[in-house]
């Protein structure tokens, strides 16, 4: 019986104009989007390789004491499926002897049109087009059957309502998956034609399978949601209005509003204000240090009874002045060390505090946005693609690692000793500046296992949404007045 019902639903859906249009849209947009994303990736990869090679050629061997090594971030191959925050991430970083590495982002406005209208990667196609298609396929499957009278007939045929609902879910889901799977296959062929990307490589296929599985989960949720809305209304016109409203809220409202709401609920000052606070603290401590220096100088010179004018010159004229100056320099070195430690502590505290509050805001935004299955889906896919919300932290971690690597390989091998205005360089055993080779930056993107570890709440949320919408649809249909 269930089989007949499912077949009827599938036949119903497939023979409809909606199916044709969905297939058309999928077949055009998904492979084309894949082609564009692939081209974009190839271009970025090409630029990366060229820059890398050029950098190697020029700075291959031989370093300087203050050399700044450049680490380049290769474009993640999976960004073809979901570009996420990739266009906003820095492309490279330079290490520094002082430990303060810098990030560099090259402005790229090569193709202003596609920047203005946004990318058409797989993620955006699924989120915008397929989710809408799921709604359109299902909006009238209960209220429409009621209006045409067939629902009453079915119920009269002693078919349990749960079975009717199940057959509707399965039928519509299959009808939606046919164009999706078809277009994915074509898209895979398009992808495989690229000389730079191989689907069978270890980097691509496990992640791709997970991405497809998550897309299936997400689409099931959307189909259930459409049925649920259909079971909540009596006329298909109301169903479609409700469906479009819910769709707009879930896709456009929740994702965009939640970061703002998080910003209003847990306000943090902008990075600029944070910078200013740091600078003010540093200046305060500096001023204190200068005051203490001057009082220390006076004390030292008074102790030795040195004349006033010796205090202001670099080479005091009297013996007492010279001794006072020596004394002052010795004591001041300690004071300076103390202040340096204090400065580092204060700045560290401010930074930590700021980072903690930022983290609170971000996680609040994430939690809020999980009200919508679209956000959970986006988080999982972008996380798998290495372009998710944690991508900039990954970049920081990679950059820090590279900085440490260069420090070990070069900076630590040369010790600079300063004495007044003179500097002397001491090299480690067997270290030769002209023969030293800068280490390569090995940029690591999170593996599938790591991404899943970070993204499992979102997968769980997707499953929960499936169950929730299904249960709601069941509740609605059980109490539905079929007349």
């Amino acid at each position, binding site marked *: 019986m269930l089989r007949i019902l499912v077949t009827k639903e599938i036949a119903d859906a497939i023979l409809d104009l909606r199916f044709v249009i969905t297939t058309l849209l999928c077949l055009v947009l998904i492979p084309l989007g894949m082609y564009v994303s692939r081209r974009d990736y190839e271009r970025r990869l090409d630029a990366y390789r060229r820059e890398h090679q050029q950098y190697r050629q020029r700075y291959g061997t031989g370093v300087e004491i203050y050399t700044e090594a450049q680490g380049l971030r290769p474009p993640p191959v999976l960004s073809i499926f979901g570009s996420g925050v990739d266009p906003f991430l820095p492309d490279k970083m330079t290490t520094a002897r002082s430990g303060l590495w810098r990030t560099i982002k090259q402005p790229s406005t090569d*193709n202003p049109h596609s920047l203005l209208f946004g990318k058409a990667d797989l993620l955006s196609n699924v989120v915008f087009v397929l989710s809408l298609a799921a709604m359109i396929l299902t909006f009238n499957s209960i209220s429409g059957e009621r209006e045409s009278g067939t629902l009453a007939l079915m119920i009269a045929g002693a078919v349990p309502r749960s079975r009717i609902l199940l057959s509707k879910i399965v039928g519509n889901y299959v009808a939606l998956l046919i164009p999706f799977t078809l277009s994915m296959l074509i898209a895979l062929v398009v992808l495989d034609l690229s000389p730079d990307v191989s689907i069978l490589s270890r980097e691509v296929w496990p992640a791709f399978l997970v991405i497809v599985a998550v897309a299936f989960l997400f689409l099931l949720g959307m189909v259930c949601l459409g049925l649920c809305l259909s079971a909540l209304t009596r006329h298909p016109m109301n169903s479609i209005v409700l469906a479009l409203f819910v769709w*707009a809220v879930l896709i456009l409202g929740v994702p965009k509003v939640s970061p703002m709401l998080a*910003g209003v609920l847990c306000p943090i000052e902008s990075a600029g204000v944070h910078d200013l606070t740091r600078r003010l603290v540093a200046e305060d401590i500096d001023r204190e240090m200068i005051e203490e220096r001057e009082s220390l100088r006076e004390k030292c010179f008074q102790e030795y009874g040195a004349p006033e004018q010796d205090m202001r010159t670099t080479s005091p004229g009297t013996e007492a002045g010279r001794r006072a100056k020596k004394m002052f320099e010795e004591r001041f070195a300690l004071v300076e060390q103390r202040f340096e430690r204090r400065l580092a502590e204060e700045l560290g505290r401010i930074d930590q505090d700021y980072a903690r509050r930022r983290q609170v805001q971000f996680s609040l935004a994430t939690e809020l946005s999980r009200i919508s299955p679209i956000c959970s889906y986006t988080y999982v896919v972008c996380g798998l693609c290495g372009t998710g919300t944690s991508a900039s932290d990954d970049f920081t971690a990679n950059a820090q690692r590279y900085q440490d690597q260069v420090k070990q390989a070069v900076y630590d091998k040369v010790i600079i000793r300063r004495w007044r205005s003179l500097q002397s360089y001491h090299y480690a055993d067997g270290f030769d500046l002209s023969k030293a080779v800068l280490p390569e930056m090995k940029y690591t993107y999170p593996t599938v296992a790591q991404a899943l570890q970070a993204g499992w709440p979102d997968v769980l949320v997707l499953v929960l949404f499936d169950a929730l919408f299904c249960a709601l649809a069941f509740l609605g249909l059980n109490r539905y007045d079929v007349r």
Partner: protein
Amino acid sequence: MFRTLIMKEITETVLDLRFVVATLLCVVLIPLGMYVSREDYEQRLAAYQRERDTYRQRYGTPEPPVTGQEEAQGFRPPSVLSIFASGLDPFLPDKVATSYLGLFRTFKEAGAGSPQSLLFGKADLLFNVTFIVSLIALVFTFNCVSGEREKGTLRLMIANSMPRSRILLSKIAGKYVALLVPFTLSILIALLVLGGSRSVSIGSLQVWPAFLLILLATLLFLLSMICLGICVSTFTRHSTGSIVLLFLVWTMFLFGVPKVSPMLAEILHPAESASVIDFTKRMTRDEIEREFERTERDTIDVRWKAELEAVLSKREEGARQIIAIQSSGREVTVDDPETNARLRELAARYVPEKARLATEYQTRIAAELKRIEEDYQNNRTVQFFAAMNLARLSPVSCYTYLVSGLCATGVTEPDNFVANARRFQGQMEQIFYGKAIWRLGRLQGFVKEFDRYKPPPFPDMIYHYPDLKEALQVHGPDLLLLGLFDVLFFSLAFMRFNRYDVR
């Protein structure tokens, strides 16, 4: 009669569930989006001002004595109109550093905002209108012909000897007014939100004319969406059919055409990327330089060396070194005064000849590089306009081009940035770099009136955003096209409606 019809349409729409939902969406999303964009703008403005002031304080006047290689930094202020449409603003560079070599560099700070908002995009007015309000317009209208046919009311109206054109007009006017109610309401609230800001004043000359134009464009765009919805409705006999067709059309106009047209343009008119062009330029330069070295060695150095070897019969291995030293403008003196005179005489003959050759090759390099750059720019311009014209098939792209252009965040802004940067570099050259005298890569000194111990303060970059007139010059066609789309959809709807089977 006409008034009654319009009133009927308006009441029908207003009493519908759709109106409530639409009003809710508009009133929540548009003011909220405005608030967020305003906050974002204020932050960017504060960051810009702070950075500029810090720079002024610290490096505003170069530290004497100057070396002639100091770089000046210019900062791009955020465009106040970017509140309405952020467009390309997040991708544009923030500052430019001039260089004594004549090549400026641009910088872009990596986005430091919340990763969620980067991932999901901004919800500015442009986005809200193109996504939400356009969808609302279509949802309002999709069943107004096919639905009335289904209910049978269309037949009644026609039976009353009502001209069809009047019915259609009343439908358009009624739906349009019904759509404008929530939109105007939410825009008014959004303006209040905007007026609460300290750094933005709506009454300023920068804001209000552009805002009025944006409103005009929005009204035109929404009218075209209403006409499109009615047009779609006349193409189908059932409202379910209309909604499906509407879904196709909306997706095509919003996602299909705008995203596909840049790719199509790229396939039709392929142009290399900037990095490839850079590479080609470097290769060309290297090649010509190598050729120069070869020519120099084979035509001048050989003769010079032969003559030198004849002069210093004993120290022939030194000939090459002497050539190198004398070429760089320094003197070679040997013990023998007669040989010295000969050396000087040879140098006087060959050094200018070498300089002539060098100049000749330098002009050749410059010409070649210019040719490549021009080719590239030509290709890019062709591709650029192909993409733009293809995208203009959709009213959504026309509207996006027009509004982002008016907000100075449109597709021409990257070029405008380069023009501004170039102007700043030129200014610096006049004030500072032009005063230094360079010879063979060494600083020889400064011109007379320039005191390297009292250098002038570096100028601020005056960033010039295109004004309304300039923006309209570029995007005038878009405004016109929006009007044309209105007419096109209206006449299509009229044609179809006239032949519509009302049974």
